[in-house]
């Protein structure tokens, strides 16, 4: 792409990622949540690939980043669900204190689940985009 597109992307990508993180962290208070924020973050990565081309991106971001993030996200989510069993109550019980409704640190494990989903969705969508748009057929991951 041209220099203009590259510079605009350089300015926009950090703010898009920041917006995505905000949407994930405030998922239990405002519209959005893990899925919406994760998709936003994956979209910013896709914008980076589109502006800078696949060769430039492949030097900075490797495939294992995406697969590692995806595996960690799903692992964290299942771990949070299993915490209830470990504590001696039921599966997927909200074991943390609920706090005051409207605070950032409230609602027990719901914000933590949102973070786990956010990591997983961002990495998963970027992994799909990476395999389809960046990698060549038969290339080693």
């Amino acid at each position: 792409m041209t220099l203009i597109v590259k510079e605009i992307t350089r300015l926009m990508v950090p703010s898009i990622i920041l917006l995505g993180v905000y949407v994930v962290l405030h998922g239990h208070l405002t519209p959005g949540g893990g899925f919406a924020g994760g998709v936003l973050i994956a979209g910013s990565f896709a914008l980076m690939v589109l502006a800078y081309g696949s060769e430039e991106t492949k030097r900075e971001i490797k495939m294992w980043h995406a697969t590692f993030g995806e595996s960690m996200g799903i692992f964290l989510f299942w771990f949070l669900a299993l915490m209830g069993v470990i504590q001696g109550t039921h599966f997927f019980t909200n074991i943390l204190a609920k706090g005051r409704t409207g605070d950032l640190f409230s609602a027990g494990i719901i914000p933590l689940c949102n973070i786990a989903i956010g990591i997983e969705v961002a990495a998963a969508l970027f992994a799909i985009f990476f395999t389809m748009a960046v990698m060549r057929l038969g290339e080693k991951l």
Partner: protein
Amino acid sequence: MMTTLILLTVLMILGAIVALESRDLLSGIISLGIIGFALTIIFLVLQAPDLAIVQIIIETLTLVILIAAVLKTTRKEVNDPVNKRKVLLWSAGLIGVAVFLLAAWRALHHMPEFGHLTLRMAQAYVDQGANLTGAGNLVAAVILDFRGYDTLGEATVLFTSVAGVVSVLRKVGRKHA
């Protein structure tokens, strides 16, 4: 609100027909985008910002991936000649649509009116959601607390599907199977 919804739905149907019938695959994909973006506006009109955020970004990403696929392969739709099989398929499709419309016309009389829920559970969620879970966003309270198993399964399905996509697309063909 009803007029807006009906207009948007008609626009979506037109977009779908153009996407199916256009000979140029690139314009077909662009008109496929009409469906997704009209759906985003419908979600906004129905006051579901959670879904609208996800829908608009997913739609954009999907368009980018599809356009990349078309640019790398071909823009022309593959022509298939008209034959007996096609006539049979068309008539079967028309019979299916007729049966569906008949069933829908009979069933829709018994549906609750638009915007008036009759489920008791929904009212309980609205009344008790904030107290029971401590989450200010009722959608988050439902998908991560009341219906947490669904979301867990959904995330697992996403994980599995991505694993499938990556392994299928990146598999190097074995010479001696």
